[in-house]
């Protein structure tokens, strides 16, 4: 079974047709996707900005990382779930979209980023509080996180402009 035939199968499901052809489902799910990016993307930015030392410097790293963790996770789930529904509506278009595959590659790298940096940075914030200066690995994690995030937004937006 090829990927293309899976996409064709998805496209023919009732859910796919409903989101694609219903007047309100698509914009509402799109709105939730965008809102989650605004609310929780902003929290991700706050954490990375703290790690880079660009802001909130009076607050302990563990305060910022620890207190926003649950919200970032919640936001991630909402973004992925609403994004999956949007994708479910038009799998054939996405199959042929270069931007979509770039976006999926970036999403995969978000997973790698989490695996690589959780032990030393995000899951280790109390140690970062004690460090005399921010370790390079934490700054690297934050910079990569910002780049991945911006890349996901950009590639996602470009899907609509792929012909």
């Amino acid at each position, binding site marked *: 079974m090829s990927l293309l035939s899976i996409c064709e199968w998805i496209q023919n499901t009732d859910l796919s047709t409903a989101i694609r052809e219903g*007047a309100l489902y*698509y*914009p509402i799910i*799109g*709105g939730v996707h*965008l*809102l989650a*990016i*605004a*609310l*929780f*993307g*902003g*929290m*991700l*930015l*706050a954490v990375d*900005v703290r790690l880079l030392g660009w*802001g*909130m410097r*009076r*607050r302990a790293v563990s*305060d*910022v990382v620890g*207190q*926003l963790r649950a*919200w970032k996770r919640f936001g991630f789930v909402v973004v992925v779930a609403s994004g999956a529904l949007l994708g479910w509506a038009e799998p054939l278009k996405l199959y042929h979209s270069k931007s979509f595959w770039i976006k999926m590659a970036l999403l995969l790298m978000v997973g790698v980023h989490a695996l690589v940096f959780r032990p030393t940075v995000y899951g280790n914030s109390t140690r970062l509080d004690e460090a005399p200066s921010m370790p390079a690995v934490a700054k690297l994690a934050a910079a990569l996180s910002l780049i991945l995030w*911006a890349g996901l*937004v*950009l590639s996602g*937006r*470009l899907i*609509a*402009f792929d012909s």
Partner: protein
Amino acid sequence: MSVLPFLNWLGSSALANAMNGPEWAFPVVECFHFFGFALLIGTIAIVDLRLLGTGMRRQSPAELTQDLKPWTLSGLALMLTTGPAMFAADPRVYYFNPSFRFKIACLLVAILYHFTFLRRAVRPDVPPVLGKLAAVVSLALWIAVVGGGRMIAFV
């Protein structure tokens, strides 16, 4: 005075030509618009959630407002430069779009509300129930702004 001559002028300005020039111009500016409102709304949401008693509870709402102020303002600046550029790409269509009008109305109220009521609601002497109410209104206004913006393309 009618607003139409202004819209026509804007629609044929150098800014409009740049936005309508290369295919990538509009979506790239739009992405910076997204970065701007993520900064703006995300940092406001951190304060709103704190007023609601969740999120960053080890800091006070006033401390968070102060900490995040440069980022909130940067987001606002980014949003208010990329937004008009997008508007310039097709002024007449946006001007008559009901979602656009709804969005701009909500945006004006949200900005005014933020710098008047919300700035006062984070003070330590404000009763918690009023702070919560202020936070709910703030979140609702920003949700309306984003929702209205998303609907522009669908009406």
